[in-house]
């Protein structure tokens, strides 16, 4: 009883926040559209194509991520080579990279006047490539995780029973990695289906997704009926995928201790395999970022460093720093409360997913409708940043709390530590890396956010992302160069967050389970 009460008390603030900042705005949006809800909407061949394409590109991204990611993961997990640990760490990078930076990178490579001289604009490949940039690492990480949980003895047993390495893969490794892959692909589908930034930047006019369609219906055509209907559809599909993911995730039980197959230096032809794998990884994961850096360097050469002294740039840097700091502070508080409350409540744990799956476009317009008096207020903007950022803190901390064996604090108590001392001397040092990681993710989210910012920002609140998008939409090579240069700045900031996340820490080892 008291435990439940305590959970409720802890959960009160995050719950109220979620209700005010996401549930009510969405309901408001649906209500707005409901008046003229047209059933014939889905019979419209144009919208049909949008929906089919959204599903198709998400499915295609899943298939491609699986086909490319699995062999890559196998090579990374099984071959020892110089820089392997770094490569595995760098796989985290896309998780903190703002969509705007990735989009700029893809455009710098394959857009008009792209570095590679191939213009893929107005083809579906641009969006698929962007999707792979973000989601390939997800699949690779999941598969590596799965592969590392197969005991070496199991593989050796299969080999001595007469299976070739290829047969071992299919009969032993694949069945073991499969559940990990399914849950990762579930997320890939979810992200690709509901992603907005990439689809807006890379989809062009013909390969835009439902999400972009909703944005255009609401922002340009004021067609709330259709937008509302599409939003319901989005929520249905994403809700379904999120449920599926949660269900799949539950079945992933990691054994306590395994002796995985240690990675071995490749021999002979295996070097070719490994080099090919690394080249493919570079193509999908590194090239867009390198393209941004290259083009930014060119821009710097072209315009000189003076342009960073531009008044707008200084304002944007200042605002980005300020807003991110405030949003992270809010996210830290909300995240801690949510994580502590979620320890005993499965429903609360699932709720932390809500801000991940809600379309930021729908959210922003819901907020606009629900709180017209706040649309140009900093409080609403920061609260929205916090909403999008705090689940990272909550999930990271909740994961760390889960993997804390209860007998550690118990041991501390029995050794004479008060609850407070137990927290500061045992729990906090163990939770701190997860907390730091959550904060870094939160900071990266706040820094890179731009969908909601497009709706709720004011000119004097110019941030890096809005400035980039603004300059991208302005004429002249100077503006394009500045946009590229600012993208590089944003990328370096994201790299900072990445370093904070991946910085090795002594207390991390026992908490390996947390992802």
């Amino acid at each position: 009883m008291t435990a439940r009460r305590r959970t409720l008390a802890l959960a009160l603030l995050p719950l109220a926040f979620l209700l005010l900042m996401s549930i009510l705005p969405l309901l408001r949006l649906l209500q707005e559209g409901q008046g003229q809800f047209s059933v014939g909407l889905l019979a419209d061949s144009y919208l049909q194509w949008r929906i089919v394409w959204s599903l198709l590109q998400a499915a295609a991204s899943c298939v491609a991520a699986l086909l490319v990611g699995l062999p890559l993961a196998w090579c990374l997990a099984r071959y020892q080579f110089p820089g392997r640990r770094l490569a595995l760490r760098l796989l985290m990078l896309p998780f903190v990279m703002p969509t705007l930076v990735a989009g700029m990178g893809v455009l710098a490579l394959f857009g008009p006047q792209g570095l590679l001289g191939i213009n893929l604009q107005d083809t579906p490949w641009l969006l698929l490539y962007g999707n792979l940039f973000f989601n390939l690492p997800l699949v690779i990480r999941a598969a590596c995780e799965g592969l590392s949980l197969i005991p070496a003895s199991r593989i050796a047993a299969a080999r001595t029973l007469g299976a070739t390495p290829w047969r071992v893969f299919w009969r032993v490794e694949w069945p073991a990695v499969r559940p990990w892959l399914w849950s990762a692909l579930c997320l890939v589908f979810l992200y690709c289906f509901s992603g907005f930034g990439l689809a807006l930047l890379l989809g062009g006019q013909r390969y835009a997704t439902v999400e972009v369609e909703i944005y255009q219906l609401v922002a340009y055509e004021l067609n709330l009926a259709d937008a509302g209907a599409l939003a319901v559809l989005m929520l249905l599909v994403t809700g379904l995928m999120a449920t599926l993911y949660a269900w799949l995730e539950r079945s992933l039980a990691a054994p306590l201790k395994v002796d995985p197959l240690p990675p071995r230096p490749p021999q002979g032809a295996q070097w070719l395999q490994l080099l090919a794998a690394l080249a493919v990884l570079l193509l999908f994961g590194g090239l867009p970022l390198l393209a941004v850096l290259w083009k930014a360097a060119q821009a710097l050469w072209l315009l000189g460093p003076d342009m960073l002294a531009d008044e707008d740039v200084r304002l944007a840097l200042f605002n980005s720093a300020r807003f991110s700091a405030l949003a992270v502070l809010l996210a830290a508080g909300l995240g801690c409360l949510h994580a502590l409350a979620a320890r005993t409540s499965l429903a609360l744990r699932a709720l932390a997913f809500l801000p991940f799956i809600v379309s930021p476009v729908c959210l922003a317009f819901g907020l606009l409708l629900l709180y017209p008096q706040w649309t140009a207020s900093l409080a609403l903007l920061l609260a929205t940043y916090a909403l999008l950022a705090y689940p990272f803190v909550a999930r990271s901390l909740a994961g760390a709390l889960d993997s804390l064996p209860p007998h550690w604090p118990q041991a501390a108590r029995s050794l004479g530590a008060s609850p407070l001392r137990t927290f500061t001397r045992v729990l906090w040092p163990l939770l701190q890396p997860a907390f730091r990681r959550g904060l870094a993710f939160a900071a990266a989210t706040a820094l890179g956010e731009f969908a909601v910012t497009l709706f709720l920002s004011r000119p004097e609140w110019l941030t890096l992302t809005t400035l980039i998008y603004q300059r991208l939409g302005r004429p002249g090579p100077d503006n394009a160069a500045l946009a590229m240069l600012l993208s590089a700045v944003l990328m370096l900031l994201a790299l900072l967050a990445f370093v904070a996340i991946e910085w090795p820490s002594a207390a991390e080892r026992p908490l390996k389970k947390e992802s």
Partner: protein
Amino acid sequence: MQLFKTTTLLAALLAAGLSHAAELRVLTHSSFAVAKPLLAEFEKQNGVKLSIIKAGDAGEMVNKLILTRANPIADVVYGIDNTLIGKAETAGVLLPMSDKGGAVSLPGAVSIDYGYVTLNYDKAWFAKKQLPLPKTLDDLTRPAYKDLLVVENPATSSPGLAFLLSTISAMGEAKAMAFWGKLRDNGVKVSKGWTEAYYTDFSRNGGARPIVVSYATSPAAEVFYSKEKLTASPTGNLLLPGAVFQQVEGAALVKGGKEAALARKFVEFLRSDAVQKDIPTSMWMYPVQPGIALDPVFQHAEKPTAHTTPDSRQIAAKTTAWVGKWTRIVLKSGQ
């Protein structure tokens, strides 16, 4: 502890959001570019702080105004044009104002400036290919002009919509839609907005399309912004019949807005000689106030003598249906 921190922070933020001293909130589109010293002068003379809220494209801006009509986000709006004024009036988001007269007029608002949406072409490209310029819109559907045109999506771009409206006004709805179908088959490219069309797809700027839907003043702007001294513009207007739309931009008071007196002063300020003189080379529109001398660079902008522009009432009534049809014809099934 964390809870306390969070709540105090939230409270502080809310308070900061609430307290705004005497300020005039001006809603405008993202191309608003009145010189900063002029705005500062206005602030000083009237003892007010101007808060310029740029809400994207003009269409987006009006939609935002409509969505927030219960509690308006601005007191005065600038940049509303003849494609949007009807929509705003129907939604009842503006205080009706009588126009002050001038070169052109905008019913229900005070006209500030005007311009023409039309086709631009890349002179060097046509010279190099030795291709004659198209004489009519229908020429653009012929194989000789395949894959040469880039237009903006009328659903997301004001010039895109203006161009669509001019074709409909000239040919009638049925013929215009048939024309667009043929354009689609002839490889018309659709961009999201003017900037994308003009700065990435237009061959003058490195793209692959030598004809673009733009403004009749764009050739002058090319000369104005060019790094080297030009005696002639590298681009020209293609004033084909049915491909010229007269756009009139205006300002109006927002219904439910505060500071009505200041708002009126701001509208007058936009019609003042200083601002009217600034408009041509900052926003590349013609001032409505008579007797304003244009910058000499405007000799490079051929001003159209005829245009096909539907009246704003008709636009308000039909735009949604027209854009819907256009989308389904030109962007059909995404192929």
